[in-house]
Structure formats: C-alpha cells, structure tokens
C-alpha cells in the first residue's frame, strides 16, 4: 500500500511534474496571447518540434546550449512570421495553415535528422551538454519542497513566473485591454485606431520565441537527444488546456499541472515495471485525461469572439 502511495505522491514525482510542465507553460503563455488576439495557431506544435530539433542541432555541433537555444529561437520566429504573413496579412485560414506547419515540421525534422546523422537510426546521436539545473540557494535545501520545486533550470523558474505576469498583462494593462478588443472584434478595433496587424505580428513573434524554447526543453533539457515527433502532440494539448482554462493564465497553470502530473505518473508506472498495465496505456493516459476534462468542461466555454476568423481590412 505504501508503495502505491509512493507511486502517486513523492518528491520525485513532484519534481518530474514541474519539469514536464515547463514546456507546456512556455508554449501555453505564448499561444494564450495569440488566441486572446483572435488567432488560433495550431502550428504551436510544429514550432515546438522545430525548436526541439534545432536546439539539438545547435548544441550538438557547438557544444554550447546557448547557441542551440539561439538557433531554435531564430527558426521558431521565422516559422511564426510565415504563419503571420499567411494568416494575418493574407487572411488565409488559420487552422489549415497551422496544420500545414505541423505536418511540415514532422517531415522536415525527421528528414534533416537522418540527413545529418545517417548512422543514428540504431543509436541516437547525443549532445554532450544540456541545460544545467540551477538549484536556488537556501530554498533548494528545504526538505521535500526544495528538490521538488527549487532544483530546476532557469527556464522552469521563468516559465512559472511567466504565468502571473501574463495574467497581470491581460487584466491590468492597457496593452492587454487592446489585445482583448482585437480578439473580440478586429474590425471594431481597427475603427478604434488599434493596429490589429502589428499587434498580432508582435504576439506571434513572441509565441515563436516561447514555443521554440518549449521545444528546446524536450531535446536539450529533459533529454540530450532528438527523437522523431518528440513533441508528441504537446502543442495540441496546450491548445486544449487553454480552452479548458477559458483563456485564463492561472486556470491554464492548473490544467498544465494536471496534465504534467498524469504525464509524470505514466513515466513512473513505466519505470516501476508495472506490467499489469501495458506501457502504451500509460503513455495514452495524459491525453485521455485531457480529453475527458475537455469533454466535461469544454461545452460551456466561450472564447474570444473572433477566434480563428480570418480578418481582412477593406482598403
């Protein structure tokens, strides 16, 4: 019995949960602002995957995670600029464009990986360094809480800080008010003199940075390698969690905690060698749980009124 409780609640699982939550938070805060401004970017999944790949490549060849992260960010921003050009400037359908990015991401990264490491199909190529864990002095030595909460990379701390900052930006700043107005009715926002195009571009560029960082967490923080389709739909999960959280950063944090906990749990179930449950079932758990939560709560949600509607200004 105590083994079972240990499986469900422990310092190890809490620490894993926070670690696994980091990419969700980074990508999620970016996507949340994007959706608040009335754009649905399903391509967040693809940008994460590109981010994971290029962070790995940069780090592998330079031995420096800084260069890896920089490369990932450049690519992430470039992809979202393309998305912005198509959907914001050209008013192309946002869902179709986002999905196209995701399909392209899977194909491109898998191909480039094989082209770069022809031998790596048997043994994956590994980077020598990964993003270092930086325990916070004093705080990290608190028993239980310290190792669970205060022994992570700077990106985890940043991601956790980002959530209240995002909530504050949305509800307490003029910028947040303008973003909300643009997401509710871009046509009206335009007539009010708000710059719909510039705001959406800016937010999409920010998302490019954040989602690329989120992907990097997978390849050069949680692991030291790149695997085909290693994001495994986390970008879609982010979108689901945003809807589930009714576009509130704090609710989104709660949703991410939930998903990350289930994710950590399935890792533990695999590691513990519990064979009654096939590991594929454990892998499925987090997605199934999100799906169930969405089905329960999702019916009542009402998002930004103009979400995913193409908007083109009449000249």
């Amino acid at each position, binding site marked *: 019995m105590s083994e079972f409780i240990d499986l469900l609640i422990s310092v190890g699982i809490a620490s894993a949960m926070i670690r696994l939550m980091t990419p969700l938070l980074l990508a999620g805060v970016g996507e949340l602002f994007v959706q608040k401004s009335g754009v649905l970017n399903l391509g967040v999944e693809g940008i994460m995957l590109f981010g994971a790949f290029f962070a790995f490549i940069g780090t592998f060849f330079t031995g420096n995670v800084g260069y890896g992260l920089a490369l990932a960010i450049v690519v992430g921003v470039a992809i979202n600029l393309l998305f912005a050009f198509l959907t914001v400037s050209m008013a192309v359908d946002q869902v179709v464009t986002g999905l196209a990015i995701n399909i392209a991401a899977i194909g491109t990264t898998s191909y480039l990986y094989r082209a770069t490491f022809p031998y790596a199909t048997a043994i994956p190529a590994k980077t020598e360094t990964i993003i270092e864990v930086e325990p916070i002095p004093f705080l990290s030595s608190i028993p239980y809480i310290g190792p669970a909460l205060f022994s992570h990379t700077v990106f985890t701390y940043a991601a956790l800080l980002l959530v209240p900052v995002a909530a504050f930006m949305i509800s307490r*700043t003029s910028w947040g*008010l303008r973003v909300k107005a643009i997401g509710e009715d871009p046509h009206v926002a335009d*007539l009010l*003199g708000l710059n719909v195009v510039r705001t959406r571009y800016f937010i999409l560029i920010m998302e490019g940075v954040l989602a690329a960082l989120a992907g990097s967490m997978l390849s050069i923080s949680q692991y030291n390698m790149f695997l085909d389709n290693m994001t495994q739909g986390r970008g879609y999960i982010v979108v689901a969690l945003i809807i589930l959280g009714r576009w509130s950063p704090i609710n989104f944090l709660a949703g991410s905690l939930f998903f990350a906990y289930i994710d950590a749990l399935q890792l533990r179930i695999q590691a513990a060698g519990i064979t009654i449950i096939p590991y594929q079932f454990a892998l499925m758990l987090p997605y199934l749980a999100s799906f169930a939560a969405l089905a329960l709560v999702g019916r009542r949600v009402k998002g930004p009124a103009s979400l995913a509607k193409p908007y083109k200004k009449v000249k």
Partner: protein
Amino acid sequence: MTEQLSAGLIVSMQGITKVYEGQVLALEDVDFDLRKGEIHVLLGENGAGKSTLMKILAGALKPTEGRIFVKGREVSFSSPRDAYREGIGMVHQHFTLIPSLNVAENILLGDEKMDFLLHMPKIADTVMKFADRVNLSVDARTPLHTLSVGEKQRVEILKLLYRGADIMIFDEPTSVLGGLEVESFFETLRSLTAQGSSAILVTHKISEAMNIADRLTVLRKGKKIATLTKDEADERKLVELMIGPGEVIPPPPSAERKTGSVVLKIRGLQVFDDLGNLAVRGVNLDLFEGEILGLAGVEGNGQEELVETLVGLRKAHGGTIEYQGARIRNLKPRDLLDLGWAYIPADRLGRGVAPELDVMLNCCMKKLDEVADKFKLINQRNLSELAKKVISMLGVKAPSQKAPVKYLSGGNIQKLIVGREAHLNPKLLIAEQPTAGLDVKTTNLTHSILLEMRNRGASVLLVSTNLDEILKLSDRIAVIYKGEIAGIFSPKDDVGLIGTCMLRGKQG
C-alpha cells in the same frame, strides 16, 4: 487656408473621388464642408455614397482622389487614429463597442494615450465624473452587452468626447433608436454643438434632417447634388434632390381588406430568452387570411423571441401554435418554408444572407429545387435567370452577380432579402423591421410589395419598432408589452392610446 478659417470652416473636403477595388465608383468629385458649431446633415438614398464620404473623413477609408482640410491645414489620413488626432471621431451605424468589456473599458479603448498600467476602479471613477460633466451619465462598471441600444449610443458619444473629439460624425444614428430615444439623442446633439462641437449627421430620413439640421448636403449616386441651409429646404424639394427628377414613386395605394379565416393561431405561448428568463409570457394571437397584422412594441418586450419561435429558430416552452388547423410548434425553418412561409429577419447579415456567398446564390437559396436540373445539380443558367428576377424586384445594386453579398451596402442587402422572400409568393410572411435602413423609394416599394401580398390573400405579420410604418400598413395592430399582448387596436385608433399601451401595457 486662412480664408477657410475666417469663413468658419472647420472641415473642407474638395473633389473627393473614391473607386472601390479599382472598379466600383462610389464617389465622384464631391465637395463637402463643415462650419464650427453647426449640425450639417448629409442626405441621400442607399448607396449614394454618404457612408463612404464620411469614412474617408474619419480615416477609415482612403480617397482615390481629392484633398481634405481640417482646421485650416491639409491632412492625409491613413487610419482612424490619424483622424482622431485632428479631433475627428465617428459613430458608425454598427457600434464600435466590444460587448464583453464594460463601459469604462470601452471608453478607454478609444483613448490612445492611456497609461500602461490600468487601475480600473479609479478609471471607472474618472469616466463617471467626466460623463456627469458632459451630461451623459452612465454606470462605468456595467458590462456593455447589458445596455440598450440608446445607452450604447451614449457610450459611443462619450467615447468620442473622452478622446477629445470636437468634430463628430454620426452614420444613420437614429436607425436603431426608438421614438423617445431619437428625441433624447437630438437633445444631446444640440447641447454638444452649443458647447462648441461640430457634427455631421448622415441619414436618409428627411423629416429628421429637417428637424435637426443647420445645413443640408444631398448626395445622389456618388455625386453632390446641392448644399442648402435649413431655411432654403423643404421636404418636397429634398425628396426631389435625393431621388432625382421623374423617379418619385407615389406611396402605395391601400386596398380594402377581404376578411378571411384564421390562418395562424397562437395560444398561451411561452418562450425563454438566452438568459433563461421568460421573455414571452403566454401570448395569444390570431393572424387572419389576407391581413397585415402589425406587432408594435418597444424593443426588448419579447417580440424578438416570439418571432424566433414562430420561424423555428427557438424552442417554445409552453403553449400551442396552429397553422391552418395543424399544430406546428417547434417545426424547423425548412418545414415552414415547405408550408409556404417566408421570413424577413431584422438581423440581415446574420440571418438574412450568407455574407460570403455570391449575390446569385443568395437570391436563389430558398428555391434551389427550381434551379436544379434532372440530376439535382444546380444549373448555372437557371440560377442566373432566377437571380435576375429577384434582383429586379427592388433593383438591387451589386457590382456583379458573382460578388460576395458582404460587399453590398446594408440597404442593398435588405433589397435582396425582401425581393427573394417576395418572389417565394408566400402564404404567410413574417417581416421583422423590413424597411430599417432603406431609403424613401425602396421603403415605398417594399410597402407596396407587402400590400400586394395581402391583397392576393397572404397573411403578413409585420414586426416593427417604427410605429408610423405599422399604422400605415396594418389592418390590425397588436401591442406587445413585457411578453404579453397588451392590446389589439385598429390603425384608425388614437395614436396616443397605442403609444401609452406600448409604454405602460394594458390599461384599466
């Protein structure tokens, strides 16, 4: 430019030409000016170019040619923001308000210099003090979607003033207001101009124009026809200027009604609104063959929900609806179409048309069987021919049959809908605000169509907040008040009596 200032001109637009998308000529060499402290009415029929001219002045559109001077300086606006910097603000026909935000947030959105950090309680306070100062009191914390149309308009005006606008443009401001609200709007307008603001009012309603204007400018088919002072103008002259010589259509003739049997019988009908409140509380109503029954009432007394239930868009909670003796409660719109019903909705873009589809398909969408060939495929030639018939009923002006309907002006969309529904030759027509936003000529034409339908035995339920229209067309008038029928009147009854019933419900 000092001569302009000395002549009291605060705005001067010269030789304005606008060509949309390189082909549709909306304005041709139009001059327009505004004096400080005056109310200048811009009159014209639907599609005359009034809105286009004003959108250019407000920076929402760029002129193809022409020069604009504001306060003695030549300006060139590339966005509404530029126009705001010169003190020009516009209240559009469709309000530029965000329903999910509250009043203070909406007013703030118009202010380009707002602080980065927002302290909402303090801002709400500032807004309310400002509102009191300009005599337009509001509760700044109210969510916008709970306000009435008149209150929303006040928020719009407040927004302009808060932003420091002293040149205000109103596009068809009264088209959405009830009679009392129009009076209070005009009072506000007069007090604003008395305080030094200048206003341009775009309308096609001549009586209103005569009521409020200092000067009037008439546009017709994209050209300026005349500018007159109020003393030089009278209603007859304005009609002629607006419509052009020889095109005046006389008001429709009224024929004696042939009394028929009851066609539609509503008993004890109860319907909830979106918020779960009972909006229709036991309505009993009969509609006879060959009559126009006017449903009068102040907006928000349940007429919207009643109509939605009748046309199959909303579920009834209780009661019965019988059509020709058969129970039809909760039928789908499609079934009602098969029964020979037609519907002219108040919400044109949302319910009347599919905005993204072209004119042709929108004209024919209720008669797709008729344009299909033997394989049930749509025959383009039939489609085009039927569309031509519908278009010619009220003379829809469209760039082409293939143009998406959303590019048509509001009036032309309404013409298309009325034409399409009339062409169905319905046995029963539910017409909701059928002439809102239409010009004199088209309004008369629409009225003739409704009367013609009645004369050949169809039943018409006319729902309108415009009491004049109801009095003019109806054989009987039902007044709805707080979700109940508060009285049935004859159009010959005293208007005061009907008005009292609309405002206070059942008497005695």
